[in-house]
């Protein structure tokens, strides 16, 4: 996953809009811990719902856990999996 692919760009924009991060989402590495960057549990719910809307996917119950949303890379992997990619 590189910083220029469109999916990662969309994820970064969603994090900017919904993640309530204390840092700029563009300055975060793919593996940076989003919770450490200030994302609260409630914000992660908003991020999840925004991802579903943006990518037209629905996270199954087993993916509704903290670790799926803890970095840009793990979010990208989950979205990719649900898109059948």
């Amino acid at each position, binding site marked *: 996953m590189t910083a220029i692919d469109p999916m990662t760009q969309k994820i970064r924009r969603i994090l900017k809009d919904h993640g309530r991060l204390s840092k700029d989402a563009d300055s975060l590495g793919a593996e940076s811990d989003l919770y450490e960057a200030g994302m609260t*549990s*409630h914000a*992660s*719910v*908003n991020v*999840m*719902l925004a991802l579903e809307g943006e990518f037209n996917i629905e*996270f199954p*119950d087993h993916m*509704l*856990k*903290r*670790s799926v*949303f803890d970095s840009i890379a793990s979010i990208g992997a989950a979205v990719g999996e649900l898109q059948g990619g």
Partner: protein
Amino acid sequence: MTEYDTDKFYEGLVKHRLIIPVGVQGAFGRGAVFEDVLERFNGLVSQLSKDDRAEVYTFPPIISRSVLERVNYLDSFPHLCGAVYSFFGKELQALALSKRVHDGEPWGDMLGITDVVLNPAACYPVYPSFTGVVPKGGRLVTMLNWVYRHEPSPEPTRMQSFRVREFVRVGTPAEVVEWRDMWLQRGLDLLTSLGLPARSDVASDPFFGRGGKILAAGQKEQKLKFEVLVPVISAENPTAVCSFNFHQEHFGSTFDIRTPDGNVANTACLGFGLERIVMALFKTHGFDPELWPKEARQRLWP
């Protein structure tokens, strides 16, 4: 072997005048024997914790609506909330309201929201009073509060309104976690001494919706909530009679509570669900306390 049957248990409680139905699910009156057991258990908790020197408070069953809004309750549990609405109109609107009521038509839309809500968690009323710097060693408060949850059910242990004997600890993370762990064992010992088959487990709150699954999973992964469980209406799904919540900085940052080192204070709380404990005793030992095992009787009626 203990048999679990929700309807039979409810009927037994009613038949022995331990509870008195009031025509709505999840609400009932309590008879004198029920109350005697409840007060004696609460007294045991006080006795057990007297050397902890908790500050003792009593709050009404309502809290400021702004507190509910500030602690994100409506983000986490909108389905459980109970806001108080009242009538703000003039004479003609009052007549219209009356007509609707007597015609059996819906009338809720003629009311407006007030500044208060029913208190959904026994610990909530106290946090705003902690604002500022807590003393070295933190603070410890205990309360017995009525709480409200909008979850009507025919199952007697799932109530809309019930009492919680609550303790709230505020301090550094180490102080708060040490206190929580001490009480987890103390609570288990207390219930076991009454002959209840109690065990503890990691738990999560009933957060709303699919997003709530993330919150619940996070709470479990981080071991922020524990419950003490006793089988009352089912062997497979024992009833939580005591719950322990470690909130980390949630209330400290919301209400600007700090420790003397300048950091945001951590908080934890624990609550005994008093009605549930009384029901667990009736389920385990039978509906007549005169016939309970000697050890349990001696603890409650020394």
